């Protein structure tokens, strides 16, 4: 019945900003960006509960207001060297495929707005990160940010965590 069609989906009003906003953080000497729409919140590092039988980069779980949230160390996920957590270490809480997860990064830098013209296609040079997980390179004022495809990077299949895989 057509009369119900109008009420079904309301379009969100466009915010006047052009382009998309990214939360940026750093790992080693490089800067990475994640679409701000995926980020739920950013919290300081805190001790985690270990999980048995999972890859090393799954560092454990924490209690986020009653929800049990798995935490992944992005350095280990990307095969970088482990680094002692310090007061700059933060956990970025993301919502990926309806699941709440956290990633440990060296520190959060900024929120940057990239217009489409400021995003270059993925160059084949990045050696540390699998280029499959990169959506592009954001460039603004001499600054390069590697934009990550979090949905792909943190899907259960990619994390080799589907039942029976580990």
């Amino acid at each position, binding site marked *: *019945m057509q009369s*119900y*069609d109008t*009420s*079904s989906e309301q379009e969100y009003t466009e915010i006047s900003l052009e382009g998309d906003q990214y939360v940026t953080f750093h790992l080693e000497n490089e800067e990475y960006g994640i679409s701000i729409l995926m980020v739920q919140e950013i919290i300081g590092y805190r*001790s*985690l*509960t*270990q*999980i*048995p*039988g*999972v890859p090393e980069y799954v560092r*454990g*779980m*924490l*209690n986020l*207001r*009653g*929800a*049990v*949230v*798995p935490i992944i160390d992005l350095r280990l996920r990307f095969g970088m060297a482990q680094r002692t957590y310090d007061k700059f270490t933060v956990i970025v809480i993301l919502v990926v495929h309806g*699941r*709440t*997860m956290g990633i440990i990064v060296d520190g959060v830098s900024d929120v940057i707005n990239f217009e489409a013209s400021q995003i270059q296609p993925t160059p084949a040079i990045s050696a540390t990160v699998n280029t499959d997980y990169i959506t592009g390179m954001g460039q603004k004022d001499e600054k390069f940010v590697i934009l990550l495809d979090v949905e792909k990077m943190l899907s*259960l299949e990619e994390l080799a*965590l*589907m*039942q029976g895989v580990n």
Partner: protein
Amino acid sequence: MVNPKIVELFIVEAEELIAELEDGIVSLEERPNDDELINTIFRAAHTIKGSAGISGFAEMVDFAHVLENTLEAVRNGSKQVSPDIISACLQSVDVLKTMMNMLQSGRSLTEVAVMPETLAALTALKTFSKAESHPPVSSDASKATTGKKRRIWQIQFRLNEDIFMNGQDPAMLIVELSDFGKIIEVHADCSALPSFENFNPLKLYTGFNVIFESEQPRSTIENVFLFVSDTGEIDIQDVTHQFKDGVNLNDADKKLGELLVETASIPPYAVQKALAAQKPVGQLLVEQGVVRQETVDSALARQKTAQEMKNNSSIRVDTDKLDRLMNLVGELVTGVAQVTQLSHTLFAEKFGTTENDEMGAAVEFLDQVSRDLQEQVMLVRMVPVEATFTRFKRVVRDLARELKKEVHLKMSGTETELDKNVIEKLVDPLKHLIRNSVDHGIEAPKERIAKGKPAAGTINLNAKQREGSIVIEIEDDGKGIDTAAILNKAKEQGSIPESAELSDKDIFNLLFLPGLSTAKAVTDVSGRGVGMDVVKRNIESLRGSIDVESMPGKGSKFIIRLPLTLAIVEGMNVRVGEEVLTIPLLSIVEQMRPGENDVKSVEGKKELINVRGQVMPLIRLHELFSFHTDNTDPCDSLVMILESEQGKYGLMVDDVLGQQQAVIKSLDKNFTKIDGVSGATILGDGRVSLILDPHKIEQMALHL
């Protein structure tokens, strides 16, 4: 495309209606003359049609319409209830269910119309909704002679005041009506009569209410009123269903005054005057000195509250919302526990004492309230087992018919409440057990009569609450379990040694072994040896247990015990290295600190522990989970003796911290299932603790 929210609402509503419809149809077979039941079924079908129409599912509307026609034929008596009608109706219920499944998975209903099931159901239904070719058997002589269905009409008309001026007369209309049928009752509605001085004899003040029985169609009646229809209000209604052997069934609910007024024996004001003169019973009692005014007032207040409560109907709440509420309340309890701890410490620091700790008392009160709140929220998740039990009527009916047996399903304790999640997971195991009882338990009617039992077998399905758990029993009065046959079969399969001597109880437990079936012939129903082991596993996954009792020739009884809720487990917190883990209290037998001679290594790797002469495997939890700990000597550690399906074993941990009521959080909501872990919970200090699955841990450690 229809708004998904509307579809969602429709699905929820329709599922209930379909369940009601199905239950009604099954019950109708037992009580074919229950008019109220027929009306309920009809209403359900009608509402499904209506809702489907609103939601825009034309295919469903069309289908429900045919079903409604058949039901209408039953309702107006032109069709007698027969097993074939019941089957046809049930068949169509199945089609409706298929439609619901399709809607749920977001598929269009267009293909439904051409599915063989749909066509079969439609054909079956249409044979019954067609006009009867031979007269139905009925006590009513007039029905039998005419062969056509007489209908009873209620005609209410109030004509224009000046109707006499046009040469019309209501009395003539009634006389004309009587040419087409039998006038049962005529009532005059005198409520519009003016006072005597204003009365004009040339005007018509009365309305009429005629109950009329006729086999003529509605159009004939309408034709009678053809010439007055534009000058007054005329309402013609088919009220056949309200009458039985010429008696208006609605009269049963009417007050005496109403009836007297309706038949015009007395004017309405006389009744009102008489009623006004009557004193309320409370006032009379007070006057007689039997009771005090205050007592009456408080009773009246109570009555009012109760009436309001009764009117407070329920609302539908998404279980996700309940889960979130549950989470928040759990957090609140944890938070309050932290505040309690802090306030004690702070008070002691500031005043050097914990005596007269007002802050502490206030916080403890808060703690109590939040725990009560938690319990209340938990209760909200509880639903009665009735809806689940009711659907088994159909299962029993269909299966009994198929096997040519007579089986009654009796239910009791249907008001018993269980966590919604538990109920959902219980449906399949229960269905299996009930099918088993019908198939294997209850004997064929001839066999039963030969044994001196009634031809119809009975299955009792009973639910009750006992000591913090729910007990569900399925009891049949069939032939009982053949222990010798089970024993032979188990020996044949090599499940137990040839020489084994087992008690009856042990033999019944063999029933739950995979692959064991004593059925002589494998049928569609059971006998394939899959099932009972699955039943047991499902029930155990709900942290429940199942037992069997049986008497040869008398029947069998399956007893299922379940926890009240899946949301909470009584747990023991243990420490391994820096990690705190939770073990379900139910699986803990005891804890011990082994002596040097109690632990033995076998074949270099596996370890055994001797608990007062009983030898069982020892599992080092830190090794199994690869957790770091400095405690690697069993003699410095604690060993928890746990009981699992396979038997007992020892689980080595560093320390025991204490008991906790653990609110269970699922891990696969945000993550994935983890071997050896059934879930997680939040500790008093806000940290996450894994809840161990003792059965899985044993499997992981011993059957690698």
